[in-house]
C-alpha cells in the first residue's frame, strides 16, 4: 500500500524566556529550550486508522499540528499526501479534514446549515456534489433537526456530530482527529466512534487520531503509536497492543457490608475504600464476567463499575516495558 504520511526524523523544540527573580534580572530572562518532538519516524498507509497516544506533553498534538501544516518543525521531513505540510498548507487544506475536540471550527451564532454553506465556498465545492455529501452525512448523523439550530445552542454531542460533518464536507482523503470524544457522554462517544470507523472503512479514508480514551483507540484504530517525551516508544497493531497492555480492567464493587475478597488468578486488590473494593483484573487470566459472578455469589454487592486502567498507567506500563527490554 502507498504511504499517505511519511515522517523522517521530525523534531520540534520550543524556546521560551523564563523570568528570573529580581528587578534587573527581569531584563535578561533565561532562555529555555524544550524538545516536544525528538526525531520521530513513521509511515502511514492509505486507509490505515492510526492512533497517536501518550501522556500530556508527550508531543502528540505537536506532531499532529506539524503534519497538518500549522506548525513548522525544528528539523526533519514530512510528506502528507505528497505535500510538505508547513510549506504547502493551503494546498493541503483541500485534501485533509481536521477535528479538534476542544475547539470549534463552526460559527457559534450561525445555524449549522449556514456554517456548512460557508464551508462549501471556503473549499470551492460545486453545489451538486456538496449537497449530495451533506445529505448523506445528515442522514448518517441524524442531523436533520439540528441544521437550522445555532451551534452555540447545541449540546456537546450534537456539536461534535456537526464538527465531524463539517470536516468531511469537502471529501478529504485524510482525517486528523484531536481528542474527538473528549467531554462526551457514553452514547455520544459510541456514535462518534462508530461513525468514524465506518466512514473511513467505506471511503478508504486514512485516519490519524489522538486521544486519552483507550476505547477510542480500541474501537476506531488498527494501529497505535505511543509517544513519550517526544519519542516513539511503541508502534504496533492495536490487537497486539491490547494483548500486551490493554488487557487489564479495573472493577469497583460497592457493598453494604464487608469488602469483596476473591482468590482468582490475575485478580489483585488495589487500595480500597470503606464499602468499595477496587480490583485490577488481568483479562488474559480471568474474564470480567467470571470476577463479577464470583463477587455476586458472595452476596452484598450493591453496585459494580468497570473501567479501563487510567491512560497514564497504560503508558507507564509501556514505558516501563520498553525500558526493560
Amino acid at each position: 500500500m502507498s504511504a499517505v504520511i511519511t515522517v523522517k526524523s521530525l523534531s520540534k523544540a520550543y524556546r521560551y524566556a523564563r523570568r528570573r527573580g529580581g528587578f534587573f534580572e527581569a531584563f535578561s530572562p533565561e532562555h529555555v529550550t524544550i524538545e516536544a518532538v525528538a526525531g520521530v519516524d513513521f509511515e502511514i498507509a492509505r486507509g490505515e486508522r492510526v492512533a497517536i497516544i501518550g501522556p500530556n506533553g508527550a508531543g502528540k498534538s505537536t506532531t499532529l499540528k506539524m503534519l497538518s501544516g500549522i506548525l513548522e518543525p525544528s528539523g526533519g521531513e514530512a510528506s502528507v499526501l505528497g505535500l510538505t505540510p508547513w510549506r504547502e498548507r493551503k494546498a493541503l487544506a483541500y485534501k485533509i479534514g481536521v477535528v479538534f475536540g476542544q475547539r470549534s471550527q463552526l460559527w457559534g451564532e450561525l445555524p449549522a446549515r449556514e456554517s456548512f454553506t460557508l464551508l462549501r465556498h471556503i473549499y470551492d465545492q460545486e453545489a451538486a456534489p456538496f449537497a449530495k455529501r451533506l445529505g448523506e452525512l445528515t442522514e448518517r448523523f441524524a442531523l436533520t433537526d439540528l441544521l437550522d439550530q445555532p451551534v452555540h445552542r447545541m449540546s456537546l454531542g450534537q456539536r461534535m456530530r456537526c464538527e465531524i460533518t463539517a470536516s468531511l464536507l469537502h471529501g478529504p482523503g485524510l482525517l486528523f482527529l484531536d481528542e474527538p470524544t473528549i467531554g462526551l457522554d457514553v452514547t455520544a462517544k459510541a456514535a462518534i466512534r462508530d461513525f468514524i470507523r465506518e466512514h473511513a472503512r467505506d471511503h478508504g479514508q486514512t485516519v490519524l487520531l489522538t486521544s486519552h480514551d483507550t476505547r477510542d483507540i480500541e474501537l476506531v484504530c488498527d494501529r497505535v503509536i505511543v509517544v513519550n517525551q517526544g519519542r516513539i516508544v511503541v508502534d504496533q497493531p492495536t490487537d497486539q497492543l491490547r494483548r500486551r497492555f490493554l488487557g487489564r480492567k479495573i472493577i469497583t464493587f460497592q457493598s453494604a457490608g464487608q469488602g469483596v475478597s476473591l482468590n482468582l488468578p490475575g485478580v489483585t486488590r488495589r487500595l480500597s475504600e470503606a464499602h468499595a473494593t477496587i480490583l485490577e483484573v488481568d483479562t488474559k487470566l480471568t474474564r470480567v464476567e467470571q470476577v463479577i459472578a464470583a463477587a455476586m455469589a458472595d452476596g452484598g454487592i450493591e453496585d459494580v463499575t468497570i473501567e479501563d486502567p487510567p491512560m497514564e498507567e497504560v503508558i507507564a506500563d509501556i514505558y516501563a516495558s520498553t525500558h526493560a527490554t
Partner: protein
Amino acid sequence: MRRDLTAAAVALRVGAGQAMAGWTVLAGRCLFYVLIMTVLSALWDKVAAEPARGAIALPAGGLVLYVLATEWITLSLPAVHMRFEDDIRSGGLEPHLLRPKFYLLQSLAQSLGGTLVRLAALGGTAVVWLAVTGRQGPPAATYPYLFVLGVLAVTVGMLLYAVAGLCAFWTRRILPVQLVIQKLMFLLGGLFAPISLYPDWLRKLAEATPFAAHLYWAGVQALAPSGAMFLTAAAWQVLWIVLLSLLCLALWRAGLAKVLREGGV
C-alpha cells in the same frame, strides 16, 4: 482570486445575516443612538443659542448634523479587534489556518457584512429622528453620497480596530492599543466637534490622519454637503483604506510566521 472573493462575498452575506438575526441587539443600538442624539443635540443647541464670549464660532446650523453623522458611523462599527484577540490568544485561530481561504479577508468580510446592516438601520433611525424632532436634515439628494462616505468611514474604522486586534500576536491583550486608538478617534477624528475648530496647524495634521478619514470627513459632508468636499473626503478615505489594509497584511504575515514557528502566542 475569483474564488477567494466569492468566499469573501459569502462571508459578507453571512455577517449581514448574523446582524439581522440579532435584531434585538440592533434595535438596542438604534435606541442608544436616539438617546445619545437627544443629549448631544440639547448640548449643541444650547451652545449655539448662548455663545460665550471668546468662544469659537460654530458652523451655521450648529453641530447636530455633524454629530448625527459621526455617531452613526461609530455605532455601526464591529468589534473585530475583540474577535482577533480572542482567536489569537485562545488558539481559536488554528481551525481557520487549516482552511484554504485567507482568514483575515474572511473575517473582515464577515465583520463588514454586519457593519453594513447596522449602517443601514442606524441611518434609517437618523432620518426618523430628524423627522420626529422637526430638524432640518441634509438635502435628500446628498444621502447617497453620505452613504458612500459612511461605508468608506466604517471600513477605515474597522481596519484601525483590526490593527489593534492583530497586535494580540505580540501583546496577547490588546486593551492598551484599543484605548489609544479610541482616544485618537475622539481627539483627531473629531467625534463630538469638527477638527476644523482646531488651530490651523492641528487641523492640517488631524485631517491627514486615518482618524479624520474615519469620522470627520463624513461629518462635514452632513453639515455642509458639496461635491468638492465629497471628492476630497472619499480620496482621503480610500487612501487610508489602502494603507491600513497593507498594514494589516504586514501584521498578519509577521504574526502568522510567529504562530507557525512558536505554535501560539
